[in-house]
């Protein structure tokens, strides 16, 4: 037990008592939870997000919805969905038949039922009624396509008081059905914060170094646009004011890094992926005093770089 404490591990109790409840205002959380609102706010300061094609708010709009206006490939999402639930990735569609990314076909009945369930709040936080939106389907960047199984991998950056403290590359598996969620069986891979190169992986709380489906090593992937990603993550703090947040990125083949969502309740598995407890890094940020939040994003980025040089954020390989 002593051994575990000495690794500076952050548990759920401490996360709730000393971090997420202290730094995340419930009003600010609600803003980040609504993906449509969050996207609009990010676009205001010109942070790239996937383009929204169309929104459905009411049940009666489903029948008359003209999906012919949508491009062949798109994603269906609930506005307040969580853990990637209710997300439907459509590869192509013709009149009355939708083809999912995993080649399953959807009939009109199934399509309408799915949209109706999203509106009824089946996938949303607290089961409140929700909206559906259709957005640009990101294309997997070449560096990931060899390793990952279906789906698009995403990159989570844990941002504490506006300073990135840890990163994790999340690779979908067959088990996770193309979703990049660790609870559903995706693989989390730690990231060297200085170089943006992937380290070791974790699958269902166990260490692993290879992807279970593609059998390729997860180590040594150089994440493209790493410096941009870190910079955007720092900027996001000014938008949402969430002091303990996970910023989820996807690197699109054509359009580069984009923010998928900002999560105000990031999980603890990032510690397993990086094989390190978070407390040391969080304390190192706290050492900069009370007014980090009021600093400009450039100053916070500078703090991040200083911490890198101080080797706090680096992981012994």
């Amino acid at each position: 037990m002593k051994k575990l404490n000495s690794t500076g591990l952050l548990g759920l109790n401490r996360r709730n008592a000393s971090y997420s409840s202290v730094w995340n205002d419930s009003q600010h959380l609600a803003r980040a939870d609504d993906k449509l609102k969050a996207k609009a706010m990010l676009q205001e300061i010109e942070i790239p997000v996937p383009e929204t094609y169309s929104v459905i708010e009411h049940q009666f709009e489903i029948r008359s919805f003209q999906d012919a206006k949508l491009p062949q490939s798109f994603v269906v999402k609930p506005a307040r969905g969580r853990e990637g639930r209710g997300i439907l990735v459509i590869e192509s569609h013709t009149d009355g038949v939708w083809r999912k990314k995993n080649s399953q076909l959807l009939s009109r009945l199934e399509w309408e039922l799915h949209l109706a369930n999203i509106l009824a709040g089946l996938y949303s936080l607290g089961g409140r009624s929700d909206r559906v939106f259709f957005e640009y389907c990101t294309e997997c960047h070449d560096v990931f396509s060899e390793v990952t199984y279906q789906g698009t991998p995403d990159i989570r950056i844990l941002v504490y008081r506006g300073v990135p403290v840890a990163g994790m590359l999340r690779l979908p598996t067959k088990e996770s059905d193309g979703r990049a969620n660790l609870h559903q069986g995706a693989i989390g891979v730690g990231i060297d914060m200085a170089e943006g190169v992937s380290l070791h992986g974790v699958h269902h709380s166990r260490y692993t170094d290879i992807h279970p489906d593609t059998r390729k090593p997860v180590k040594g992937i150089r994440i493209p646009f790493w410096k941009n990603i870190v910079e955007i993550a720092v900027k996001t703090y000014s938008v949402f004011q969430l002091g303990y947040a996970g910023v989820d990125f996807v690197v699109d083949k054509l359009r580069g890094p984009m923010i998928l969502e900002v999560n105000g309740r990031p999980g603890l598995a990032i510690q397993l992926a990086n094989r390190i407890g978070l407390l040391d890094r969080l304390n190192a940020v706290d050492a900069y005093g009370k007014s980090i939040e009021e600093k400009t994003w450039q100053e916070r980025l500078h703090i991040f770089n200083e911490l890198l040089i101080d080797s706090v954020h680096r992981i012994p390989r």
Partner: protein
Amino acid sequence: MTSGITASSGRHPTAPVLIRFAMAKIKKDTDLMDRRVYRIAAILIFGAVAIGFFRHFISLFIISESYAVTSPWLSSIFPPEMHGQVTSVVLIPLGLLVVTMFRNVVGISTFGTSTPVLLAIALRETSLIFGLIFLIASGLVGSFVRSHLSRLHILLIPALSIVLTVAATSMLIIVLVLHHQGSVPLDYFSPLSIVVITWMIERFAILQLESGTREALKTAAGTLFVAIVIYGIIRFHLISHFLLLYPETILIITGLLLLLGRYTGLRWTEYYRFRDLMKK
């Protein structure tokens, strides 16, 4: 500024100093907070004990005939005709304390916080075995109906309502069958058990949709386990009598809950979850 990222050229001396400084500051802040919580908790706990002793000694001198309960040396603030109804209520805080311990210290997940307590109280009314028969039978019927409804593409809320209707009805049928066989007196039937079990099936179905069957079964097992532990505690009449005689105990429980509210250590299940990190 972005170009400031250079490969670590050995250890920079400032980092450990900064961390030590931060640790000291954080410790000071949390110490202050802890001290405030400890003070309130101490006031609640010792205050309750003091009130209890005071009432105890007073009652040695003034014994009211009409309010005398089981013990001849103590009077209760509740009139005897109320005891039947009040017993379950005074047991709720005690059950909640147990649930809090299991959730925040052990790390077992349950459907909500009050569900295990209500289930335990329902089990106390129906007896363990019949409660479990109700729960398992109606749960099986419910999930059977649900799997068939999903094939018919029924919308969520109507489907859930049908499942709950069938589950409640199946419990009624079980009661009827047992009654006509003559093996069980109808005392075992309690409306509370049907309410709680219906509620549990709803939570189970929702969690199953949200997080998958495995997670839902795990949470259901956790709820049942905690409920059985609470049932094991509250079935002793001594405890409910004690709580009826000394309702001040609720203040003690509140104090303990406050202390639990400042427990920021790892949960026991987290030692298991992070076992690979431990094996360094």
